[in-house]
C-alpha cells in the first residue's frame, strides 16, 4: 500500500501518493468495464493521468475498497436490459420501452447500427445498445431474455 484514499467535504476522492502529494478529484475507472469488471482498476487524476493501477480490489484494505466501489457505482451507468416491453416501430428511429436493472425506462434507437455485438468469448450473446443520448444499455445474454423480448429484438438484428 503506497497510497491513501479519502473523501473530502465536496464528495470528491483525494489520493495521497507515496511521495505525499495529494490529488483532488480522483476518478476510478475500470479497464474492462463489461467483460472483466473486476480486473484492473485505475485511479485517474482530474486531468486524466493514471496515478495508481490496482489489479484487483481484493488486495485493498476494506475502507479504501469501499470508497472505490462507492465512487464506481456513482460513475458507472450501463443499465442492463432485462425485458423489452414494447417498441414504437420496427423502423428506426424507434422508441423502446424497456425494463432494466435500474428500473423501467424508454430508449430511442437511432439506427440498427447502434446495436453492437460484443465479440468476446465469455459474452458471445451480449449486445451493447447505444441510445440517441449516448447511454449504453447492455443485454448480457440475448438468448436468456423472455420469448417476447427475443422476438422483438430479432427484428433489429
Amino acid at each position, binding site marked *: 500500500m503506497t497510497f491513501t484514499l479519502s473523501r*473530502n*467535504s*465536496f*464528495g470528491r476522492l483525494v489520493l495521497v501518493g507515496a511521495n505525499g502529494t495529494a490529488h483532488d478529484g480522483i476518478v476510478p475507472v475500470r479497464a474492462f468495464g463489461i467483460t472483466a469488471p473486476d480486473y484492473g482498476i485505475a485511479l485517474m487524476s482530474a486531468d486524466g493521468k493514471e496515478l495508481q493501477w490496482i489489479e484487483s480490489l481484493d488486495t485493498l484494505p476494506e475502507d479504501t475498497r469501499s470508497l472505490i466501489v462507492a465512487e464506481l*457505482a*456513482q*460513475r*458507472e*451507468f*450501463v*443499465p442492463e436490459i432485462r425485458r423489452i416491453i414494447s417498441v*414504437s*416501430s*420496427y*423502423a*428506426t*428511429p*424507434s*422508441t423502446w420501452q424497456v425494463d*432494466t436493472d*435500474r*428500473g*423501467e*425506462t424508454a430508449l*430511442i434507437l*437511432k439506427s*440498427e447500427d447502434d446495436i453492437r455485438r460484443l465479440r468476446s468469448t465469455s459474452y458471445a450473446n451480449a449486445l451493447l445498445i447505444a*441510445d*440517441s*443520448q*449516448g*447511454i*449504453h444499455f447492455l443485454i448480457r445474454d440475448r438468448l436468456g431474455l423472455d420469448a417476447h423480448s427475443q422476438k422483438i429484438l*430479432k*427484428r433489429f*438484428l
Partner: protein
Amino acid sequence: MTASDTLPEAWQAELFACLAPDEQLIAWLELDLDDHLDFRPGLVALSDRRLITTGASNLSWNNWPLSAGLTLTHHDNAGVGTLELENAQGRLARWRYTLGRSPAALRFEREFVRQRDSVASGQPPPPPSVATCPICQMQLQPDEEDCPNCVRELHTPPSTWTLLRIWRFARPYKGQLIAGFLLTLAATAATLVPPYLTMPLMDDVLIPYQNGTPIDPNKVAWLLGGLLGSALLAWALNWARTYILALVSERIGADLRTTTYEHLLKLSHEYFGGKRTGDLLARIGSETDRINVFLSLHLLDFATDVLMIVMTSVILFSINPWLALVTLTPLPIIAWMIHLVRDKLRTGFEQIDRVWAEVTSVLADTIPGVRVVKAFAQEAREAQRFREANKHNLEVNDRLNRIWSLFAPTVGLLTEIGILVVWAFGIWLVSKDQITVGVLIAFLAYISRFYTRLDSMSRIISVTQKAAAGAKRIFDILDHVSSVPEPVNPVTLPPLKGGIHIDKVSFRYGNRAVLHGIDLKIAPGEMIGLVGHSGSGKSTLVNLICRFYDVTEGAIRVEGTDLRSIAIADYRRNIGLVLQEPFLFFGTIAENIAYGKPDATRAEIVAAARAAHAHEFILRQPHGYDSLVGERGQSLSGGERQRISIARALLIDPRILILDEATSAVDTETEFEIQSALNNLIRGRTTIAIAHRLSTLRRADRLVVMDRGRIVEIGNHEALMASAGAYWRLYQAQTKQLDAPPALGEDGSPS
C-alpha cells in the same frame, strides 16, 4: 408562459404546497435518475429565494436559501449528467439525469445564476439571454424547449404520411399525372370488356348451337372483333399510361435527388462530421431510387388493381347482385390470409438484408486492412469470420425459403377455393334458372383475374412502408437547416486586406465547451503559428475562421465586418486551405490545381505549380499536367499531393491562408521542399498555420500557444523561449525527443 404553468401536473400539488404565498417559481428541472442512478423521477425547482428538491423519498422536500456563496456546477460522464450544489465548505446536494435533459439542466443553471446574483445584490435579475440549441447552435424561440431541428431527426419514427410530402416534387408534373390517371382509368375499363363479351358468346352463340340453332357468322365476327378491338385498345392505352407515368416518376426521382444533393452541399461542416459517408450515399442514391420504383411500379399497379376491383364489382353487381355477393365475400378473407403470410415473409426479408450487411461488413473490414491481416498472418481467422457470416446467411435464408416456397402454392390454393365457391353457387343458380351459363362464365373470367392480383396488392403495405422510410431519410436532409446560415441581407465584401479580429470567442460543441473567450487581433499579412497539445482547440479555431462553424459567443470580424453577415461563398473565396491530408479529386492534375478557379488559364496553372515546387514532378508524369490522378491521388506520393494542393491554394490568390498541419504527414526532406513551396505561398498573405513540429513555425511573426481552449501565451519564438512558459515546455519536450531517442537495452526493450 411562467415556470409554474409549464410544471408537469404530477409535481404541481406537492411543490405548490411548500411554496410561501408570495414565493414565485422561477424554473424547474425534472430529473429521471436518483442518486443511485436508478430510473426514478425527481424534481429540483428554483424559486425567487431558494432551491427546493425532492428528497430521498418523494414525500420529503429539501431546500437551500439562495445566497452569494452557492454555486451550481454541471458535468457529465457516460451519458449521465450531474448537477452539484456547493458552497465554500463542501457539497450540499447532487442531482443526476440522463443527457437528454442536459439542455434543460443548462437552462436551469443559467436561471440559478441570474436569481442568485439578484438575491445577493438586491437588484432585479437581468433579462434572459437568447437560448440556442446546444447541438446545432441555432437560436431557439423563447417558448421552444428543444431545437426542432435536432429533435425531429432523432425521435420521430417514419410515418407513411411522409410520402405525401413528395407531392412537393410531383406538383410541376400535375398535367401529366392527371393524363396518366385518366389513361389508367380507360385502360382498366378496356381490359374489362373481353370477359363481358364472353356472355353473349356463350348465351347467344354456343349454347343455342348445342341446342340445334346454327351459328350466326355475322354475330360471331362482331363479338370476336369486339374482343380483338378491346385487346388492342387496352394495349395502346396501357402503353401510353405506363410511358407517361414512368417518365413523370423518373423526373420526380431526379428532382428529388438533385434537390437533396444541392441542399446537402449547403449544410455545415458539422453535419458531415456527424454522418457516415455510406449512409449519405445510400440516402441520395438508393433511397431516391426506391421511391422512384415505388411511384412508377408499385403505386401504379396498386391504383390499377383498386380501379379494376371497383369496376369489376360494379359490373358484377349490375349483372347479378346475388352471385356478385358470393363472389366477392371470400375476397377479404383471402386478402387477409395473404397478408398474414406476407408479414412473416417481410420480417424474414428484413433479416436477410441485415445478414447480408453483416457479410459485406466483413469484407469492408478486411479488404482495406489487408496489409494488417497479412502482416499478422490472420488470413485464416478472417476467412473463418467470413465463413461464419455466410453460415448465418444460409441459416436465415433456409428458414425463409421454407415459408417462401409455401407461399405461391398457398395463393394458388386459395384462389382455386374461391373459384370453387363461385362454381358451386353458380351451378346452383343456373339450376334454379336464376342466371344463364354465359353469366357464370363471365363471372369466372372476371374473378380469376382479380384473385391473381390480390398477391401483388398485398405487397403494397410493405413497399409503402419501405418507401416511407426512404422518404423520411431524404426529408431529414431536406429539413435540416444549416447551422451556418446564410445571412438574409449579405454585406458585399470589399477587397480584403486580410486582417482578422477574433473578439472574445467561445465555442461549444454539443455540451462540451471547446473554446473559452479567445481574443486575438491578426494584422493583414501577418503569419500566426498556432501551437498546443492536440485537443487544445487549434483546429476548432481555424474551423471558426473558415466559418465551417459559427461561434457560440463573441464574434469574428474581417476588416470590421462580422463573418456571419457576409455571404459564405463570397468570404470563402478569400481563403486558401491546405490540409494535412490533401484531397485530390478524380481528374487531371491541371483540373485539380484549377479546382477553386475553373476558368484559370494554362499559364496561370503552370505558374502556380512552379511556385508550389510541383512543376517538375508533374512533368515527370506520363501526360504532364493532363495525367489522371485517382480519388486519393494514388499514383502520387504524399509530398507530391501536398504540393498540388498548395498550388491549388496559390491559384486562387487568397488573402487569408490556412495551413492545418500541412507538413506533418511527410518526411523531413519532403517537408523541406514543401516548406519552400509554402514560403512562396505565405508571402504577403495573412497566414494561420497549425503545426505539430514547432521548427516549421520559426518564420511565424507571432506564436499563439493554446491550452484547453484558452490562449495561454502569445509572442515570437525568442520571447516565448525566454519566458520559459508553456511554449518552452513544448519545445523542450520536442527537442529532447529528437536529440535523445530512448536508448534500447540489450534485450531490445527501452531501458
